[in-house]
Protein backbone atom coordinates (compact mmCIF):
# COMPACT_ATOMS: atom_id res chain seq x y z
CA UNK A 1 0.00 0.00 0.00
CA UNK A 2 1.18 3.49 -0.64
CA UNK A 3 -0.04 6.89 0.39
CA UNK A 4 0.20 9.54 -2.29
CA UNK A 5 0.70 13.10 -1.34
CA UNK A 6 -0.70 15.43 -3.90
CA UNK A 7 1.82 18.18 -4.13
CA UNK A 8 2.59 20.67 -6.82
CA UNK A 9 5.40 19.60 -9.09
CA UNK A 10 7.63 21.68 -11.35
CA UNK A 11 7.17 21.31 -15.09
CA UNK A 12 9.70 19.17 -16.87
CA UNK A 13 8.01 18.39 -20.12
CA UNK A 14 8.39 19.75 -23.62
CA UNK A 15 7.42 23.21 -24.71
CA UNK A 16 5.52 24.11 -27.87
CA UNK A 17 7.64 25.90 -30.50
CA UNK A 18 7.97 29.63 -29.94
CA UNK A 19 7.35 30.44 -33.57
CA UNK A 20 3.76 29.22 -33.53
CA UNK A 21 3.03 30.19 -29.95
CA UNK A 22 0.84 33.05 -31.07
CA UNK A 23 -1.63 30.52 -32.50
CA UNK A 24 -2.84 29.82 -28.97
CA UNK A 25 -4.74 33.07 -29.13
CA UNK A 26 -6.78 32.23 -32.25
CA UNK A 27 -7.44 28.68 -31.08
CA UNK A 28 -9.02 29.85 -27.87
CA UNK A 29 -10.85 32.69 -29.56
CA UNK A 30 -12.35 30.41 -32.21
CA UNK A 31 -13.49 27.80 -29.76
CA UNK A 32 -15.36 30.34 -27.70
CA UNK A 33 -16.65 32.26 -30.73
CA UNK A 34 -18.20 29.27 -32.38
CA UNK A 35 -20.02 28.30 -29.26
CA UNK A 36 -22.38 31.11 -30.08
CA UNK A 37 -25.26 30.12 -32.28
CA UNK A 38 -25.49 33.58 -33.76
CA UNK A 39 -21.94 33.39 -34.98
CA UNK A 40 -22.40 29.89 -36.30
CA UNK A 41 -25.57 30.88 -38.06
CA UNK A 42 -23.93 33.84 -39.74
CA UNK A 43 -20.98 31.75 -40.71
CA UNK A 44 -23.04 29.12 -42.43
CA UNK A 45 -25.16 31.82 -43.98
CA UNK A 46 -22.02 33.27 -45.52
CA UNK A 47 -21.64 30.14 -47.59
CA UNK A 48 -25.02 30.35 -49.21
CA UNK A 49 -23.82 32.72 -51.95
CA UNK A 50 -21.04 30.24 -52.70
CA UNK A 51 -23.53 27.45 -53.13
CA UNK A 52 -25.64 29.60 -55.39
CA UNK A 53 -22.58 30.59 -57.35
CA UNK A 54 -21.53 26.97 -57.74
CA UNK A 55 -24.97 26.13 -59.04
CA UNK A 56 -24.72 29.02 -61.48
CA UNK A 57 -21.35 27.84 -62.74
CA UNK A 58 -22.73 24.39 -63.27
CA UNK A 59 -25.66 25.71 -65.22
CA UNK A 60 -23.43 27.89 -67.36
CA UNK A 61 -21.34 24.91 -68.30
CA UNK A 62 -24.13 22.42 -68.78
CA UNK A 63 -26.30 22.67 -71.89
CA UNK A 64 -28.62 20.06 -70.50
CA UNK A 65 -29.25 22.11 -67.42
CA UNK A 66 -29.86 25.16 -69.54
CA UNK A 67 -32.30 23.26 -71.69
CA UNK A 68 -34.03 22.03 -68.60
CA UNK A 69 -34.40 25.55 -67.32
CA UNK A 70 -35.24 26.99 -70.74
CA UNK A 71 -32.30 29.31 -70.56
CA UNK A 72 -30.36 28.38 -73.69
CA UNK A 73 -28.25 31.16 -75.02
CA UNK A 74 -29.14 33.65 -72.29
CA UNK A 75 -26.61 36.43 -72.31
CA UNK A 76 -26.17 36.68 -68.61
CA UNK A 77 -24.97 33.12 -68.40
CA UNK A 78 -21.29 33.95 -68.31
CA UNK A 79 -18.65 33.17 -65.79
CA UNK A 80 -16.14 35.97 -66.12
CA UNK A 81 -14.32 38.61 -64.12
CA UNK A 82 -17.58 40.36 -63.43
CA UNK A 83 -19.04 37.23 -61.93
CA UNK A 84 -16.20 36.79 -59.49
CA UNK A 85 -16.18 40.42 -58.56
CA UNK A 86 -19.88 40.31 -57.81
CA UNK A 87 -19.34 37.29 -55.62
CA UNK A 88 -16.64 39.10 -53.69
CA UNK A 89 -18.82 42.17 -53.33
CA UNK A 90 -21.50 40.05 -51.70
CA UNK A 91 -18.93 38.38 -49.46
CA UNK A 92 -17.50 41.76 -48.53
CA UNK A 93 -20.79 42.53 -46.93
CA UNK A 94 -20.56 39.34 -44.89
CA UNK A 95 -17.06 40.38 -43.92
CA UNK A 96 -18.43 43.65 -42.62
CA UNK A 97 -20.95 41.78 -40.52
CA UNK A 98 -18.45 39.37 -39.13
CA UNK A 99 -15.89 41.97 -38.32
CA UNK A 100 -18.49 44.02 -36.51
CA UNK A 101 -19.78 40.95 -34.74
CA UNK A 102 -16.58 39.43 -33.45
CA UNK A 103 -14.09 42.27 -33.64
CA UNK A 104 -15.10 44.51 -30.74
CA UNK A 105 -15.11 41.72 -28.20
CA UNK A 106 -11.72 40.49 -29.24
CA UNK A 107 -9.45 43.10 -27.73
CA UNK A 108 -11.71 44.72 -25.24
CA UNK A 109 -12.03 41.55 -23.17
CA UNK A 110 -8.32 41.66 -22.53
CA UNK A 111 -8.29 45.35 -21.78
CA UNK A 112 -11.42 45.56 -19.66
CA UNK A 113 -9.73 43.97 -16.70
CA UNK A 114 -6.14 44.73 -17.49
CA UNK A 115 -5.12 41.23 -18.50
CA UNK A 116 -2.45 42.46 -20.88
CA UNK A 117 0.42 42.30 -18.35
CA UNK A 118 -0.35 38.62 -17.90
CA UNK A 119 0.05 38.05 -21.65
CA UNK A 120 3.16 40.11 -22.02
CA UNK A 121 4.90 38.63 -19.00
CA UNK A 122 4.90 35.41 -21.02
CA UNK A 123 7.15 34.63 -23.98
CA UNK A 124 4.95 36.49 -26.43
CA UNK A 125 5.70 39.90 -27.83
CA UNK A 126 3.27 42.70 -28.61
CA UNK A 127 3.59 41.97 -32.30
CA UNK A 128 2.81 38.30 -31.78
CA UNK A 129 -0.13 39.14 -29.60
CA UNK A 130 -1.46 41.37 -32.36
CA UNK A 131 -0.72 38.71 -34.93
CA UNK A 132 -2.73 36.23 -32.92
CA UNK A 133 -5.72 38.53 -32.71
CA UNK A 134 -5.36 39.40 -36.37
CA UNK A 135 -5.41 35.74 -37.30
CA UNK A 136 -8.66 35.19 -35.43
CA UNK A 137 -10.56 37.50 -37.75
CA UNK A 138 -8.43 37.19 -40.87
CA UNK A 139 -8.70 33.42 -41.01
CA UNK A 140 -12.46 33.49 -40.72
CA UNK A 141 -12.77 36.21 -43.31
CA UNK A 142 -10.48 34.29 -45.63
CA UNK A 143 -12.70 31.26 -45.48
CA UNK A 144 -15.61 33.31 -46.68
CA UNK A 145 -13.82 35.36 -49.34
CA UNK A 146 -10.93 34.12 -51.37
CA UNK A 147 -11.02 30.48 -50.34
CA UNK A 148 -14.48 29.77 -51.73
CA UNK A 149 -13.83 32.17 -54.60
CA UNK A 150 -10.73 30.26 -55.67
CA UNK A 151 -12.61 27.01 -55.32
CA UNK A 152 -15.34 28.38 -57.55
CA UNK A 153 -12.68 29.46 -59.98
CA UNK A 154 -11.24 25.97 -60.05
CA UNK A 155 -14.70 24.52 -60.47
CA UNK A 156 -15.26 26.73 -63.44
CA UNK A 157 -11.85 25.87 -64.82
CA UNK A 158 -12.50 22.18 -64.49
CA UNK A 159 -15.80 22.49 -66.31
CA UNK A 160 -14.78 25.01 -68.93
CA UNK A 161 -11.46 23.57 -69.95
CA UNK A 162 -7.81 24.54 -69.99
CA UNK A 163 -8.19 27.43 -72.41
CA UNK A 164 -10.55 29.24 -70.19
CA UNK A 165 -8.20 28.59 -67.29
CA UNK A 166 -5.20 29.99 -69.11
CA UNK A 167 -7.03 33.07 -70.32
CA UNK A 168 -8.56 33.88 -66.96
CA UNK A 169 -5.79 32.99 -64.56
CA UNK A 170 -5.31 36.68 -63.85
CA UNK A 171 -8.73 36.69 -62.22
CA UNK A 172 -7.45 34.30 -59.55
CA UNK A 173 -4.68 36.76 -58.83
CA UNK A 174 -7.18 39.58 -58.53
CA UNK A 175 -9.36 37.52 -56.22
CA UNK A 176 -6.43 36.89 -53.90
CA UNK A 177 -5.09 40.42 -53.89
CA UNK A 178 -8.48 42.02 -53.61
CA UNK A 179 -9.53 39.82 -50.71
CA UNK A 180 -6.28 40.28 -48.86
CA UNK A 181 -6.52 44.07 -49.09
CA UNK A 182 -10.03 44.09 -47.78
CA UNK A 183 -9.26 41.63 -44.99
CA UNK A 184 -6.22 43.57 -43.84
CA UNK A 185 -8.02 46.93 -43.84
CA UNK A 186 -11.08 45.61 -42.09
CA UNK A 187 -9.29 43.52 -39.49
CA UNK A 188 -6.80 46.16 -38.49
CA UNK A 189 -9.49 48.79 -38.24
CA UNK A 190 -11.76 46.67 -36.10
CA UNK A 191 -8.90 45.62 -33.82
CA UNK A 192 -7.76 49.20 -33.43
CA UNK A 193 -11.24 50.35 -32.50
CA UNK A 194 -11.61 47.50 -30.06
CA UNK A 195 -8.30 48.31 -28.41
CA UNK A 196 -9.03 52.00 -28.22
CA UNK A 197 -12.26 51.62 -26.33
CA UNK A 198 -12.01 49.23 -23.44
CA UNK A 199 -15.62 48.36 -23.22
CA UNK A 200 -17.12 45.85 -25.63
CA UNK A 201 -20.42 47.65 -26.08
CA UNK A 202 -18.70 50.93 -26.83
CA UNK A 203 -16.37 49.21 -29.28
CA UNK A 204 -19.33 47.76 -31.15
CA UNK A 205 -20.98 51.15 -31.27
CA UNK A 206 -17.80 52.74 -32.54
CA UNK A 207 -17.47 50.08 -35.24
CA UNK A 208 -20.99 50.75 -36.41
CA UNK A 209 -20.30 54.46 -36.47
CA UNK A 210 -17.20 54.00 -38.57
CA UNK A 211 -18.80 51.61 -40.99
CA UNK A 212 -22.23 53.15 -41.40
CA UNK A 213 -22.49 56.60 -39.92
CA UNK A 214 -19.33 58.07 -41.37
CA UNK A 215 -20.14 57.00 -44.93
CA UNK A 216 -23.56 58.54 -44.46
CA UNK A 217 -21.84 61.71 -43.39
CA UNK A 218 -19.72 61.49 -46.50
CA UNK A 219 -22.82 61.25 -48.64
CA UNK A 220 -24.26 64.27 -46.91
CA UNK A 221 -21.12 66.21 -47.78
CA UNK A 222 -21.54 65.11 -51.36
CA UNK A 223 -25.09 66.36 -51.47
CA UNK A 224 -24.36 69.68 -49.85
CA UNK A 225 -21.18 70.50 -51.67
CA UNK A 226 -22.23 68.92 -54.96
CA UNK A 227 -19.13 66.86 -55.12
CA UNK A 228 -18.16 63.24 -54.81
CA UNK A 229 -15.13 63.50 -52.56
CA UNK A 230 -17.27 62.53 -49.62
CA UNK A 231 -17.07 59.03 -50.94
CA UNK A 232 -13.60 58.87 -49.52
CA UNK A 233 -15.23 58.29 -46.17
CA UNK A 234 -17.02 55.22 -47.43
CA UNK A 235 -14.88 52.15 -46.95
CA UNK A 236 -17.02 49.86 -49.03
CA UNK A 237 -16.91 52.35 -51.86
CA UNK A 238 -13.15 52.54 -51.66
CA UNK A 239 -12.64 48.84 -51.80
CA UNK A 240 -15.17 48.60 -54.59
CA UNK A 241 -13.13 51.11 -56.50
CA UNK A 242 -9.96 49.15 -56.01
CA UNK A 243 -11.67 45.97 -57.08
CA UNK A 244 -13.08 47.61 -60.14
CA UNK A 245 -9.57 48.22 -61.31
CA UNK A 246 -8.31 44.86 -60.20
CA UNK A 247 -11.03 43.03 -62.05
CA UNK A 248 -11.19 45.37 -64.98
CA UNK A 249 -11.11 43.14 -67.99
CA UNK A 250 -10.63 45.25 -71.15
CA UNK A 251 -7.07 46.13 -70.19
CA UNK A 252 -6.01 42.57 -70.62
CA UNK A 253 -8.70 40.72 -72.40
CA UNK A 254 -11.10 42.29 -74.90
CA UNK A 255 -13.50 39.37 -74.49
CA UNK A 256 -13.99 39.96 -70.82
CA UNK A 257 -16.87 42.00 -69.57
CA UNK A 258 -16.32 45.55 -68.37
CA UNK A 259 -17.19 46.66 -64.92
CA UNK A 260 -20.11 48.86 -64.17
CA UNK A 261 -19.06 52.49 -64.19
CA UNK A 262 -20.76 53.20 -60.85
CA UNK A 263 -17.52 52.72 -59.07
CA UNK A 264 -15.33 55.06 -61.00
CA UNK A 265 -16.10 58.50 -59.72
CA UNK A 266 -12.75 58.94 -58.03
CA UNK A 267 -9.28 58.15 -59.30
CA UNK A 268 -7.72 54.92 -58.11
CA UNK A 269 -4.80 56.50 -56.37
CA UNK A 270 -7.07 58.37 -53.96
CA UNK A 271 -8.64 55.11 -52.87
CA UNK A 272 -5.26 53.47 -52.41
CA UNK A 273 -4.03 56.42 -50.44
CA UNK A 274 -7.09 56.46 -48.22
CA UNK A 275 -6.92 52.75 -47.53
CA UNK A 276 -3.24 52.99 -46.74
CA UNK A 277 -4.04 55.83 -44.40
CA UNK A 278 -6.67 53.75 -42.59
CA UNK A 279 -4.22 50.89 -42.19
CA UNK A 280 -1.51 53.20 -40.90
CA UNK A 281 -3.89 54.89 -38.50
CA UNK A 282 -5.03 51.52 -37.16
CA UNK A 283 -1.49 50.37 -36.63
CA UNK A 284 -0.67 53.59 -34.85
CA UNK A 285 -3.70 53.23 -32.57
CA UNK A 286 -2.73 49.67 -31.75
CA UNK A 287 0.84 50.68 -31.07
CA UNK A 288 -0.37 53.27 -28.59
CA UNK A 289 -2.79 51.00 -26.81
CA UNK A 290 -0.95 47.71 -26.68
CA UNK A 291 1.14 48.51 -23.66
CA UNK A 292 1.45 46.34 -20.59
CA UNK A 293 1.82 49.35 -18.37
CA UNK A 294 0.71 52.91 -18.78
CA UNK A 295 3.40 55.41 -17.87
CA UNK A 296 2.11 57.76 -15.21
CA UNK A 297 3.40 61.29 -15.37
Amino acid at each position, binding site marked *: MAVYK*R*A*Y*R*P*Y*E*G*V*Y*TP*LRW*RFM*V*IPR*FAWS*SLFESRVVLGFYFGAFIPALLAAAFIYIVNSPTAQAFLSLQGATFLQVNNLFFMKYLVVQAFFCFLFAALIGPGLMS*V*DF*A*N*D*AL*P*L*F*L*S*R*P*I*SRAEYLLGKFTVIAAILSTITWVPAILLFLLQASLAGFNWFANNLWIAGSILLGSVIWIVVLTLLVLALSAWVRWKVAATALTIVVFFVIPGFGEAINEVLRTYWGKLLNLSYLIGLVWTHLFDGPLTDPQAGTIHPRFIDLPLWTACLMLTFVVALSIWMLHKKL*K*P*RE*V*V*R
Partner: protein
Amino acid sequence: MQAVIELENLVVRLGGRTILDSLNTSVKGRAIGLLGPNGSGKSTLINTLLGFYEPDGGTARIFGRDIRTHAKQLRSLIGYMPESDSFIAEMTGIRFVRYMAELSGLPPDEAMERAHEAFFYVGLGEQRYRKVGTYSLGMKQMVKLAQAIVHGPKLLFLDEPTNGLDPPGRLRMLNLIREIRDTFGMHIILSSHLLRDVEECCEEVLILKDGRIADYCNLEEERRANRKFIEIETYNGNDGFTKAVESLGCECAWLKNGRAKLVLPPSLEMRELYGAAARHAVQIRKMNFRRDSLEDIFLRAMESTNGVNGTAEKAGQAHGRL
Protein backbone atom coordinates in the same frame (compact mmCIF):
# COMPACT_ATOMS: atom_id res chain seq x y z
CA MET B 1 24.61 29.56 -5.30
CA GLN B 2 24.00 31.31 -8.57
CA ALA B 3 22.62 34.78 -8.26
CA VAL B 4 18.96 35.07 -9.05
CA ILE B 5 19.00 38.69 -10.11
CA GLU B 6 22.01 40.84 -10.87
CA LEU B 7 21.74 44.54 -11.49
CA GLU B 8 24.64 46.56 -12.83
CA ASN B 9 24.16 50.31 -12.95
CA LEU B 10 20.60 49.83 -14.00
CA VAL B 11 18.95 53.07 -15.06
CA VAL B 12 15.31 53.44 -16.04
CA ARG B 13 13.66 56.69 -17.09
CA LEU B 14 9.95 57.14 -17.55
CA GLY B 15 7.99 60.20 -18.53
CA GLY B 16 11.15 62.28 -18.45
CA ARG B 17 12.06 61.36 -14.87
CA THR B 18 14.77 59.00 -13.69
CA ILE B 19 12.94 56.37 -11.70
CA LEU B 20 15.75 53.85 -11.15
CA ASP B 21 19.13 55.42 -10.65
CA SER B 22 22.18 53.16 -11.14
CA LEU B 23 21.06 50.13 -9.19
CA ASN B 24 23.83 47.71 -8.32
CA THR B 25 23.23 44.48 -6.52
CA SER B 26 23.31 40.72 -6.68
CA VAL B 27 20.37 38.92 -5.13
CA LYS B 28 20.68 35.28 -4.17
CA GLY B 29 18.07 34.09 -1.71
CA ARG B 30 15.22 31.65 -2.08
CA ALA B 31 12.57 34.17 -1.07
CA ILE B 32 13.46 37.82 -1.31
CA GLY B 33 11.33 40.63 -0.03
CA LEU B 34 11.16 43.85 -1.98
CA LEU B 35 10.30 46.84 0.15
CA GLY B 36 10.17 50.55 -0.26
CA PRO B 37 7.92 53.51 0.20
CA ASN B 38 5.59 54.66 -2.54
CA GLY B 39 7.60 56.22 -5.30
CA SER B 40 10.75 54.30 -4.52
CA GLY B 41 10.76 52.49 -7.84
CA LYS B 42 9.67 49.05 -6.65
CA SER B 43 6.99 48.61 -9.29
CA THR B 44 9.27 50.03 -11.94
CA LEU B 45 11.96 47.53 -11.03
CA ILE B 46 9.54 44.64 -11.29
CA ASN B 47 8.13 45.95 -14.57
CA THR B 48 11.62 46.34 -15.98
CA LEU B 49 12.65 42.83 -14.99
CA LEU B 50 9.49 41.52 -16.62
CA GLY B 51 10.41 43.30 -19.80
CA PHE B 52 7.63 45.89 -19.78
CA TYR B 53 10.06 48.81 -19.70
CA GLU B 54 13.35 49.13 -21.53
CA PRO B 55 16.33 50.01 -19.37
CA ASP B 56 17.96 53.29 -20.32
CA GLY B 57 21.34 52.27 -19.03
CA GLY B 58 23.21 49.47 -17.34
CA THR B 59 22.22 45.81 -17.35
CA ALA B 60 19.99 43.45 -15.48
CA ARG B 61 20.45 39.69 -15.48
CA ILE B 62 18.11 36.99 -14.27
CA PHE B 63 19.72 33.57 -13.74
CA GLY B 64 22.73 34.91 -15.52
CA ARG B 65 20.88 35.92 -18.67
CA ASP B 66 20.59 39.50 -19.83
CA ILE B 67 16.99 40.67 -19.84
CA ARG B 68 17.50 42.59 -23.04
CA THR B 69 18.85 39.75 -25.17
CA HIS B 70 17.16 36.77 -23.59
CA ALA B 71 13.76 38.29 -22.96
CA LYS B 72 11.65 35.46 -24.35
CA GLN B 73 13.69 32.73 -22.75
CA LEU B 74 13.48 34.44 -19.40
CA ARG B 75 9.78 35.01 -19.64
CA SER B 76 9.18 31.29 -19.87
CA LEU B 77 10.94 30.95 -16.55
CA ILE B 78 9.02 33.70 -14.82
CA GLY B 79 5.62 33.79 -13.18
CA TYR B 80 3.94 37.06 -12.33
CA MET B 81 1.15 37.84 -9.93
CA PRO B 82 0.28 41.51 -10.37
CA GLU B 83 -1.07 43.71 -7.62
CA SER B 84 -4.01 45.07 -9.54
CA ASP B 85 -6.95 43.15 -10.92
CA SER B 86 -5.85 41.22 -13.99
CA PHE B 87 -8.19 38.71 -15.53
CA ILE B 88 -10.55 37.97 -18.38
CA ALA B 89 -14.04 38.18 -17.01
CA GLU B 90 -15.84 36.09 -19.62
CA MET B 91 -13.67 33.03 -19.28
CA THR B 92 -14.16 30.35 -16.69
CA GLY B 93 -11.35 30.03 -14.19
CA ILE B 94 -10.07 26.80 -15.61
CA ARG B 95 -10.15 28.03 -19.18
CA PHE B 96 -8.32 31.18 -18.22
CA VAL B 97 -5.51 29.34 -16.49
CA ARG B 98 -5.28 26.85 -19.35
CA TYR B 99 -5.00 29.74 -21.78
CA MET B 100 -2.16 31.23 -19.78
CA ALA B 101 -0.45 27.87 -19.48
CA GLU B 102 -0.56 27.27 -23.23
CA LEU B 103 0.75 30.76 -23.89
CA SER B 104 3.67 29.86 -21.66
CA GLY B 105 4.44 26.93 -23.90
CA LEU B 106 2.69 23.96 -22.41
CA PRO B 107 1.08 21.56 -24.89
CA PRO B 108 -2.73 21.54 -24.60
CA ASP B 109 -3.04 18.26 -22.68
CA GLU B 110 -0.38 19.16 -20.19
CA ALA B 111 -1.87 22.60 -19.84
CA MET B 112 -5.23 21.11 -18.90
CA GLU B 113 -3.71 18.80 -16.30
CA ARG B 114 -1.57 21.44 -14.73
CA ALA B 115 -4.33 24.01 -14.69
CA HIS B 116 -6.47 21.67 -12.62
CA GLU B 117 -3.55 20.94 -10.36
CA ALA B 118 -2.93 24.61 -9.88
CA PHE B 119 -6.54 25.11 -8.89
CA PHE B 120 -6.38 22.28 -6.42
CA TYR B 121 -3.24 23.70 -5.02
CA VAL B 122 -4.59 27.18 -4.41
CA GLY B 123 -7.75 25.75 -2.94
CA LEU B 124 -10.36 26.62 -5.53
CA GLY B 125 -12.71 23.70 -6.06
CA GLU B 126 -15.95 23.93 -7.94
CA GLN B 127 -15.45 27.65 -8.48
CA ARG B 128 -13.03 26.90 -11.27
CA TYR B 129 -15.96 26.22 -13.58
CA ARG B 130 -17.46 29.64 -13.01
CA LYS B 131 -16.56 32.78 -14.90
CA VAL B 132 -13.76 34.76 -13.36
CA GLY B 133 -15.89 37.88 -13.51
CA THR B 134 -18.15 36.37 -10.82
CA TYR B 135 -15.35 35.63 -8.39
CA SER B 136 -14.92 37.33 -5.05
CA LEU B 137 -11.76 39.28 -4.34
CA GLY B 138 -10.10 36.40 -2.53
CA MET B 139 -10.82 34.02 -5.37
CA LYS B 140 -9.44 36.45 -7.91
CA GLN B 141 -6.22 36.65 -5.91
CA MET B 142 -5.98 32.87 -5.94
CA VAL B 143 -6.58 32.70 -9.69
CA LYS B 144 -3.80 35.22 -10.17
CA LEU B 145 -1.52 32.97 -8.16
CA ALA B 146 -2.67 29.91 -10.09
CA GLN B 147 -1.85 31.41 -13.47
CA ALA B 148 1.52 32.52 -12.11
CA ILE B 149 2.58 29.03 -11.06
CA VAL B 150 0.82 26.81 -13.59
CA HIS B 151 3.77 26.62 -15.98
CA GLY B 152 6.27 25.79 -13.24
CA PRO B 153 8.40 28.93 -13.35
CA LYS B 154 11.75 29.21 -11.63
CA LEU B 155 11.17 32.76 -10.47
CA LEU B 156 7.91 34.08 -9.11
CA PHE B 157 7.09 37.76 -8.78
CA LEU B 158 4.36 38.34 -6.22
CA ASP B 159 3.09 41.89 -5.90
CA GLU B 160 1.04 42.46 -2.74
CA PRO B 161 -0.36 38.92 -2.75
CA THR B 162 -2.46 39.33 0.38
CA ASN B 163 -4.15 42.49 -0.82
CA GLY B 164 -7.81 42.54 0.19
CA LEU B 165 -7.79 39.03 1.62
CA ASP B 166 -9.58 38.44 4.90
CA PRO B 167 -7.61 36.78 7.73
CA PRO B 168 -8.13 33.12 6.77
CA GLY B 169 -7.36 33.99 3.14
CA ARG B 170 -4.23 35.82 4.17
CA LEU B 171 -3.03 32.91 6.26
CA ARG B 172 -3.69 30.55 3.42
CA MET B 173 -1.81 32.70 0.95
CA LEU B 174 1.22 33.01 3.22
CA ASN B 175 1.23 29.27 3.85
CA LEU B 176 1.13 28.66 0.13
CA ILE B 177 4.00 31.04 -0.43
CA ARG B 178 6.09 29.30 2.19
CA GLU B 179 5.30 25.90 0.72
CA ILE B 180 6.23 27.06 -2.73
CA ARG B 181 9.46 28.44 -1.42
CA ASP B 182 10.38 25.31 0.49
CA THR B 183 9.27 22.53 -1.76
CA PHE B 184 9.43 23.41 -5.37
CA GLY B 185 12.76 25.01 -6.01
CA MET B 186 11.16 28.25 -7.03
CA HIS B 187 12.65 31.57 -6.16
CA ILE B 188 10.24 34.20 -5.01
CA ILE B 189 10.34 37.97 -5.10
CA LEU B 190 7.70 39.26 -2.74
CA SER B 191 6.85 42.92 -2.92
CA SER B 192 4.65 44.17 -0.13
CA HIS B 193 3.92 47.04 2.20
CA LEU B 194 3.06 44.64 5.00
CA LEU B 195 6.36 44.06 6.77
CA ARG B 196 4.84 41.14 8.63
CA ASP B 197 4.15 39.27 5.40
CA VAL B 198 7.70 39.77 4.21
CA GLU B 199 9.10 38.75 7.54
CA GLU B 200 7.18 35.50 7.59
CA CYS B 201 8.14 34.41 4.12
CA CYS B 202 11.50 35.87 3.12
CA GLU B 203 15.08 35.33 4.20
CA GLU B 204 16.47 38.33 2.43
CA VAL B 205 15.19 41.81 1.91
CA LEU B 206 15.97 44.42 -0.73
CA ILE B 207 14.90 47.92 0.25
CA LEU B 208 14.55 50.68 -2.32
CA LYS B 209 14.26 54.38 -1.74
CA ASP B 210 14.08 57.18 -4.30
CA GLY B 211 15.20 54.86 -7.06
CA ARG B 212 18.28 53.65 -5.21
CA ILE B 213 19.03 50.66 -3.09
CA ALA B 214 18.77 51.68 0.54
CA ASP B 215 19.66 48.29 1.99
CA TYR B 216 20.01 44.64 1.14
CA CYS B 217 20.26 42.29 4.07
CA ASN B 218 19.73 38.80 5.29
CA LEU B 219 17.00 38.52 7.90
CA GLU B 220 18.19 35.26 9.38
CA GLU B 221 21.52 36.74 10.23
CA GLU B 222 19.90 39.85 11.63
CA ARG B 223 17.66 37.81 13.88
CA ARG B 224 20.55 35.80 15.17
CA ALA B 225 22.40 38.97 15.99
CA ASN B 226 19.53 40.42 17.98
CA ARG B 227 19.81 38.15 20.91
CA LYS B 228 19.92 40.68 23.61
CA PHE B 229 16.72 42.49 22.73
CA ILE B 230 13.57 41.01 24.14
CA GLU B 231 9.95 41.99 24.36
CA ILE B 232 7.73 40.97 27.24
CA GLU B 233 4.14 41.38 28.23
CA THR B 234 3.36 41.18 31.91
CA TYR B 235 0.24 40.72 33.97
CA ASN B 236 -0.10 42.10 37.47
CA GLY B 237 3.02 44.08 36.92
CA ASN B 238 4.02 46.32 39.78
CA ASP B 239 6.65 48.86 40.69
CA GLY B 240 8.65 46.30 42.64
CA PHE B 241 9.10 44.28 39.51
CA THR B 242 9.94 47.31 37.44
CA LYS B 243 12.64 48.37 39.86
CA ALA B 244 14.00 44.87 40.11
CA VAL B 245 14.34 44.56 36.36
CA GLU B 246 16.06 47.90 36.08
CA SER B 247 18.40 47.07 38.90
CA LEU B 248 19.48 44.00 36.98
CA GLY B 249 21.00 46.37 34.49
CA CYS B 250 18.39 46.21 31.74
CA GLU B 251 17.45 49.16 29.64
CA CYS B 252 13.69 49.24 29.58
CA ALA B 253 10.94 50.89 27.59
CA TRP B 254 7.61 50.37 29.29
CA LEU B 255 4.55 50.55 27.05
CA LYS B 256 0.86 50.29 27.75
CA ASN B 257 -0.94 47.09 28.66
CA GLY B 258 2.05 45.72 30.51
CA ARG B 259 4.26 45.52 27.46
CA ALA B 260 7.91 46.32 27.61
CA LYS B 261 10.98 46.25 25.44
CA LEU B 262 14.17 45.35 27.21
CA VAL B 263 17.82 45.38 26.32
CA LEU B 264 19.58 42.78 28.43
CA PRO B 265 23.15 43.31 29.52
CA PRO B 266 25.40 40.62 28.04
CA SER B 267 26.01 38.89 31.33
CA LEU B 268 22.37 38.56 32.32
CA GLU B 269 20.61 35.22 32.09
CA MET B 270 16.93 34.73 31.55
CA ARG B 271 16.65 32.99 34.92
CA GLU B 272 17.41 36.16 36.75
CA LEU B 273 14.63 37.99 34.98
CA TYR B 274 12.24 35.21 35.90
CA GLY B 275 13.57 35.27 39.40
CA ALA B 276 12.52 38.89 39.66
CA ALA B 277 9.10 37.96 38.32
CA ALA B 278 8.71 35.10 40.81
CA ARG B 279 9.68 37.29 43.73
CA HIS B 280 7.12 39.92 42.83
CA ALA B 281 4.39 37.47 41.76
CA VAL B 282 4.31 38.90 38.28
CA GLN B 283 3.24 36.75 35.34
CA ILE B 284 5.27 37.08 32.17
CA ARG B 285 2.62 36.22 29.66
CA LYS B 286 4.66 36.81 26.57
CA MET B 287 8.36 36.78 25.99
CA ASN B 288 10.33 36.65 22.82
CA PHE B 289 13.51 37.88 21.29
CA ARG B 290 12.79 40.97 19.29
CA ARG B 291 10.88 40.06 16.20
CA ASP B 292 10.42 43.39 14.63
CA SER B 293 13.97 43.50 13.35
CA LEU B 294 12.59 44.10 9.89
CA GLU B 295 10.84 47.25 11.05
CA ASP B 296 14.09 48.49 12.51
CA ILE B 297 15.99 47.62 9.37
CA PHE B 298 13.42 49.36 7.26
CA LEU B 299 13.36 52.53 9.32
CA ARG B 300 17.12 52.66 9.46
CA ALA B 301 17.24 52.34 5.69
CA MET B 302 14.75 55.15 5.29
CA GLU B 303 16.58 57.48 7.60
CA SER B 304 20.06 56.88 6.40
CA THR B 305 19.80 57.70 2.72
CA ASN B 306 20.15 61.22 1.29
CA GLY B 307 19.71 63.22 4.43
CA VAL B 308 16.84 63.09 6.85
CA ASN B 309 13.32 63.00 5.57
CA GLY B 310 10.82 64.26 8.09
CA THR B 311 8.55 61.33 7.36
CA ALA B 312 11.06 58.76 8.47
CA GLU B 313 11.67 60.53 11.76
CA LYS B 314 8.02 60.86 12.60
CA ALA B 315 7.46 57.24 11.75
CA GLY B 316 10.34 56.28 13.94
CA GLN B 317 8.75 58.12 16.85
CA ALA B 318 5.44 56.50 16.12
CA HIS B 319 7.05 53.12 16.21
CA GLY B 320 8.70 53.96 19.48
CA ARG B 321 5.28 54.56 20.91
CA LEU B 322 4.12 51.14 19.84
